[in-house]
């Protein structure tokens, strides 16, 4: 017999988390982490209790976007996420720092299970998970381990991106995983193409975020981030 006891405790750890939202999409560089981090900020500013989990182990970026430094979880019957901007934040950077982490699939899966099994989130309204691109270990594990997860899909209008997003949507539908909807990011034309395209899959098109040339200079500064057009559009999409 060889039973992994961690799998049985994950449900308990997320018991008082009302909603778990995984920010996902077919490709890298389309704005998943931006939506996850700025979305978490907007929720927290609106008075919700928010947790933020970075599962992109090869390219964790939430700490950079939010300008997070010098915090570390407390140890008490597990690990207690440190709070920053009133957001409970967990990332592999606490243990890996800035160094490259060469992990294969089985290791990634193990590390995800470990973090989910030992993190004491407490009560939250939202746990936002920033996913790595695609349908690899992280995505399959979150679907396998977190039964109440809902996916929020980020895309751009590029056919190259839409092609992989389509595969993602088909898999999620096939596995009967709830999909909150699609956000179109980095919009540079007025084309309704993505909105129409989304109808094919019977998922809600939540809204669009234009390409925002001021986003880059606001990275690392939460007050500036919240003033960007990106944040204003995202607020509208989230109906705040």
């Amino acid at each position, binding site marked *: 017999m060889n039973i992994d006891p961690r799998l049985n405790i994950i449900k308990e750890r997320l018991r008082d988390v009302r909603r778990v939202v995984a920010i996902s999409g077919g490709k890298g560089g389309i704005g998943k982490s931006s939506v996850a981090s700025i979305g978490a900020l907007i929720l927290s500013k609106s008075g919700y209790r928010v947790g933020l989990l970075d599962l992109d182990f090869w390219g964790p970026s939430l700490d950079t976007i939010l300008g997070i430094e010098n915090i570390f979880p407390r140890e008490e019957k597990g*690990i207690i996420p440190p709070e920053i901007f009133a957001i409970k934040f967990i990332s*592999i950077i606490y243990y890996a720092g800035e160094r490259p*982490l060469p992990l294969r699939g089985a*290791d990634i899966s193990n590390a995800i299970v470990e973090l989910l099994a030992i993190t004491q989130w407490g009560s939250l309204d939202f746990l936002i998970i920033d996913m790595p691109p695609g349908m690899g270990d992280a995505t399959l594990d979150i679907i396998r381990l977190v039964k109440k997860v809902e996916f929020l899909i980020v895309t751009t209008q590029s056919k190259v991106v839409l092609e992989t997003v389509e595969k993602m949507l088909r898999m999620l539908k096939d596995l009967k995983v709830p999909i909150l909807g699609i956000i179109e990011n980095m919009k540079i034309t007025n084309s309704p193409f993505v909105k129409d395209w989304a109808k094919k899959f019977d998922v809600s098109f939540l809204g669009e975020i234009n390409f925002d040339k001021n986003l880059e200079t606001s990275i690392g500064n939460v007050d500036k981030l919240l003033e960007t057009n990106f944040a204003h559009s995202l607020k509208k999409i989230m109906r705040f």
Partner: protein
Amino acid sequence: MHEWALAQAVVYTAIEYQRKEKLREIVELEIKIGELQQIDREIFEFALKEIVQLKKMTGMRVRVEKEEAILKCRVCGYQWSFADSMKRLSGEQAEFIHFLPEVIHIHSRCPQCKSPDFEIVKGRGVKITAIKGIK
């Protein structure tokens, strides 16, 4: 005290097993703790006892055994014991591995070819290796 979280996982798993297998009682549980995670055995066993009491599983005898951690290089095939690498780790590095054993890939290298691409063959963390119960 993140040992407590893992001990709780163990007891909850036993309870889940009891329910699934429709057992009247679980009488014995065998656990292996892998060396890589460097679990403080005393704290772990103390937490286990406390949670066993809390969950009224007091008929259950728990046996905890250590498992040696073995690493194997995927590039050159060399196999070694974590105990050897451990000597070269700083206190902080060892602590990071304690929380998340996979970060060993940052802090250790294959002693023969220096690759970080090695496999944790065994002895990573906590696992349940036997459960005995009565119907």
